[in-house]
């Protein structure tokens, strides 16, 4: 393995986590970032599901890139994505039924994620299997990271607890704050507030320490 290629792969991996973080930087696929993040465990499993789908879709598209006709590529991408989402849905329903009961609808809706289709179109359909896999892992880990941060923040402030999964069906609930917590953070409205505040925090760090402009939309 030459040193240049390993540096490239590392950059590609980090790209999805920091520079093109799906939620905090690109502001795509926002729905689950608010819907499932009132509990750390749900947030982590949702993130893992996206990580799995993103990586597998990238690998599949990359393997098929030479036989896909450019004219019908979008329907084929959608077909591959919905295939992997269906598999993920079935796996989760079988192995983590309690999580699935809460986040099931949002797992099905991974199909409509702009970020997954975008990576298939922009990266996996043009690159060989290893870079595509690394790219998918990077984007997925970036997503997992964002969901973990948001749900950590929301559960801690809103309930004063942290639900940490210790296995597929086991979990441990840590209690940190025994006084009355800020209930609004676990309510639907709190999700929007939490994401807004966290985005502003990332912007603030950018402006303050990186000497770059805020992300403007």
């Amino acid at each position, binding site marked *: 393995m030459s040193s240049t290629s390993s540096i490239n792969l590392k950059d590609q991996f980090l790209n999805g986590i920091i520079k093109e973080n799906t939620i905090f930087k690109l*502001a*795509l*696929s*926002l*729905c*689950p970032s*608010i*819907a499932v993040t009132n509990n750390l465990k749900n947030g982590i499993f949702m993130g893992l599901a996206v990580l799995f789908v993103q990586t597998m879709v990238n690998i599949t598209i990359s393997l098929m890139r030479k036989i896909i006709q450019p004219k019908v590529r979008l*329907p084929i991408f*959608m*077909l591959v994505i*919905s*295939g992997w*989402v*269906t598999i993920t*849905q*079935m796996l989760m329903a079988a192995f983590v039924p309690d999580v699935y009961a809460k986040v099931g*609808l949002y797992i*099905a*809706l991974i*199909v*409509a994620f*702009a970020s997954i*289709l975008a990576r298939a179109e922009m990266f996996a359909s043009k690159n060989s299997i290893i870079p595509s896999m690394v790219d998918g892992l990077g984007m997925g880990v970036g997503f997992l990271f964002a969901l973990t941060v948001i749900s950590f923040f929301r559960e801690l402030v809103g309930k004063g607890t942290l639900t940490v999964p210790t296995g597929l069906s086991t979990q441990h609930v840590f209690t940190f704050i025994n006084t009355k917590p800020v209930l*609004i953070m676990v*309510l*639907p*409205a*709190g*999700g*929007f*507030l939490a*994401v*807004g*505040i966290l*985005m*502003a*925090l990332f*912007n*603030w760090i950018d*402006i303050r320490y990186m000497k770059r402009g*805020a*992300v*403007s*939309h």
Partner: protein
Amino acid sequence: MESEFIKYFELIISASLINNFVFTRFLGLCIFFGVSKKMETAVGMSITFTAVMMISAALSWVVFNKVMDPLGITFLEIIVFIGIIAGIVQASDTIMRKVSPGLYYKLGIYLALISTNCIILAVPLVSVGEKYSFLQSLAFGLGSGLGFGLALIIMASIREKLELADVPAAFKGLPMAFVITGLIALAFTGFSGLITL
């Protein structure tokens, strides 16, 4: 008959206000934040959206209950529904361009956006999950479309005013939009006791 009518009315109210897709189910957020900058686009989007939503709700009900259920392939629902939606969007794009170019000029760009919207996929998935009848899923589609339109229009009118406000640098743009949505969502929780289903 009258109680039937009230049932559908309740379904529409519950889908549009109590379980508003944007504020309590958090779906369609990408489009919600994307097109709520201007009032004009918000109105155009809501009209197109409601229409496509009702057609897709009706069509997917027929396909699910008359084709997929007898064949025992209901586990393929995601793949089939996304295909139906892509087909409807493509078809209405072509039909609108031929039949009414003026309308196409106004609403055409929203059509393309709709296929990447998760609400449009969520409506058939939810109505299949709840085992709605044909008319019920139609009412559910209409209610969801109206609710999304209402959310878009409220948001657009606030954001137009926000242009003139002095927002801290870190909060400019999306973070502020999120905080505002949070506040609207808080107001919408007030609807939760409106009717009991």
